[in-house]
């Protein structure tokens, strides 16, 4: 059942050493308000599963800049120079995964699959870290499921039942992560009354969502 909660309640969801999925694609569609609360909460030693580590001068990137992460599982770190520096110093473990494999791993985690077989990465260093499985004479790499303690998701609109809409390219990893977190926390640009989102057009069904950050001031009724 979806709960609409305030900032303090969100902060209590965070804990040292958690494994987090955070939506977004180089800041576009990233849950910047939730990341702010995560930074404020002071927790660290986190594992981040996401497409990238953001820009070092923008919000998502601050998780690296403020040294909250001990491990990242991402497809790309080129937009955040601090990630590379911490990696080279040995302060941050970086696992690079092809983007299409990463998204299938998250989907497998959410969909109850034991993994998927992908041709991507065969003949490359990625193959050295994966199990190779041959099917009908062709080789594939096993991409194992990924799940997280919390998935932080940015929506455009959320209704009171947790049904979500995303906007344009801000959709990206958000819907699939909403399936793969033990708890799913949503930040929405707008919280609309139940029934306002056409059930035929819902992008993420509310049954995947646990918490929605209320909009407005601390005591505002949303």
């Amino acid at each position, binding site marked *: 059942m979806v709960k609409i909660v305030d900032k303090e309640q969100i902060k209590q969801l965070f804990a040292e050493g958690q494994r987090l999925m955070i939506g977004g694609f180089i800041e576009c569609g990233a849950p910047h308000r939730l990341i702010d609360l995560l930074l404020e909460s002071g927790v660290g030693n986190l594992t981040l599963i996401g497409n990238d580590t953001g820009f070092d001068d923008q919000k998502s990137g601050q998780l690296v800049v403020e040294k909250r992460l001990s491990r990242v599982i991402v497809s790309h770190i080129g937009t955040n120079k601090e990630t590379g520096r911490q990696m080279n110093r040995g302060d941050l473990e970086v696992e690079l995964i092809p983007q299409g494999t990463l998204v299938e791993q998250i989907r497998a985690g959410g969909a*109850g699959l034991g993994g998927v077989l992908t041709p991507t990465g065969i003949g490359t260093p990625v193959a050295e870290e994966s199990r190779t499985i041959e099917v009908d004479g062709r080789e594939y790499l096993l991409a194992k499921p990924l799940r997280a303690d919390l998935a932080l998701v940015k929506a455009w609109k959320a209704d009171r039942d947790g049904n979500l809409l995303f906007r344009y390219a801000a959709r990206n990893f958000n819907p699939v992560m909403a399936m793969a977190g033990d708890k799913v926390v949503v930040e929405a640009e707008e919280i609309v009354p139940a029934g306002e989102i056409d059930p035929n057009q819902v992008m993420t069904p509310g049954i995947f969502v646990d918490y929605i950050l209320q909009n407005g001031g601390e005591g505002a009724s949303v």
Partner: protein
Amino acid sequence: MSEMRERITRRIARELEDGDVVNLGIGMPTMGADFIPDDIRVIFQSENGFVGMGPRPPKGEEDPDLVNAGSEPVTIKTGGAFFDSTTSFAIIRGGHLDATVLGALQVDEQGNLANWKIPGKLVPGMGGAMDLTVGARQVIVATSHTTKKDQPKILPECTLPLTAKGEVDLIVTELAVFRVTGQGLLLEEIAEDTTVKEVREKTAAGFSIAPELTTFA
């Protein structure tokens, strides 16, 4: 709905909790929802592609695009959502269902379920039943206690092809409620109009009896 089915359905409704997401297998009438107390909200999933399934619409208001997995006309409640079959089974297999209720040809002491095939006789296919049984957090079997020929359906070991292995959590019949435990079946409740003796006669599987055995109506 027969009196027997109504009783089973009513008893199963008591298993469901506020906020639960539940798939009622085909054969389990959507009317099951009518037995849910008013003060709790249970969200029904239909494996052909939606959550928030509501009751059959009034006559004349049926929509051919809005049917349950058994092709019966239904409605969508406020807060419901439609999706395609990949998402539907991601929900089912991915552990996003709190419970599923399925019928049985046979069910056994190890929590094995057989409900999709009688070799050489009846082969309807498993449809979504195998995924539901593997994926739902709680698997509730709703079944008549015996076959039409009065043969036991609750067995030491299923003889028909399995739907899933060791996944059943609770068995509800018109006579009894059994919980499947690591030590076999535990009789938790009997119907108010039966006896443990009758249940034992009609059950081929062994079972132990809960210290606080209660009755249901």
